């Protein structure tokens, strides 16, 4: 089974090679990359953390669902660790007999991964601050950061 999470830089060519099929006339690929701006703040990198085993399984399910729904060959891979601005954090690809299904499958794959896979991003800003995007309120997180030295001693 293909690995769906990796610590290594992503390459679209490798993902596309995985979906190539002479019976399929349409191949689509989507790359998500670290954007320089987030809510008017300058970003230097995004760090991704995952529940690796469960994220792998969830992406396997999403890829399988996409195959059932759109009838082609699908691939998806997501980075963990630090991804610099401009670098890809996720790549999905689909090849299908005709192009509409390939586009639709890519949309299904990326939307499914974003909504369902247990993966979290931590945005690192140019000013040195960083914040998790995980539903924890910013005020609570701010306190946690200040107390981090003490709380780390808690084990």
């Amino acid at each position: 089974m293909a690995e769906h999470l990796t610590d290594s830089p992503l390459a679209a060519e490798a993902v596309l090679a995985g979906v190539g099929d002479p019976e399929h006339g349409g191949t689509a690929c989507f790359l998500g990359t670290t954007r320089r701006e987030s809510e008017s703040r300058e970003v230097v990198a995004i760090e991704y953390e995952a529940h690796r085993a469960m994220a792998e399984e969830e992406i396997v399910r999403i890829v399988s669902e996409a195959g059932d729904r759109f009838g082609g060959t699908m691939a998806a891979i997501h980075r963990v660790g630090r991804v610099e601005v401009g670098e890809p954090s996720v790549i999905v690809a689909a090849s299908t007999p005709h192009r509409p299904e390939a586009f639709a499958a890519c949309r299904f794959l990326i939307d499914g991964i974003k909504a369902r896979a247990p993966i979290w991003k931590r945005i690192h800003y140019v000013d040195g601050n960083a914040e998790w995007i995980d539903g924890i309120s910013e005020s609570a997180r701010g306190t946690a950061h200040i107390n981090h030295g003490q709380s780390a001693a808690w084990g």
Partner: protein
Amino acid sequence: MGTQIRVTVRLFASLRDAAGMDRVELRVPAGTPAGAVWGHLPDAVVDLGLPTTTRYAVNQEWTVPGATLRDGDEVALILPVSGG
């Protein structure tokens, strides 16, 4: 005092940072549901407040907060996700 069971709680993202570790071993009363482990976690974690949309997994399978834990179970607290 009733029977106690041992469970492991996996923490990610803000929760892991606040705890200073990625898993916490707990002893909780037998019959404790997955959704109740929160109250047994370190104050530094509890003070963050758990998002209402948090999901739960036991032994790496999705489950509901009401699922009863058994001795040796591993509970993962899955905060609202943000991959992509």
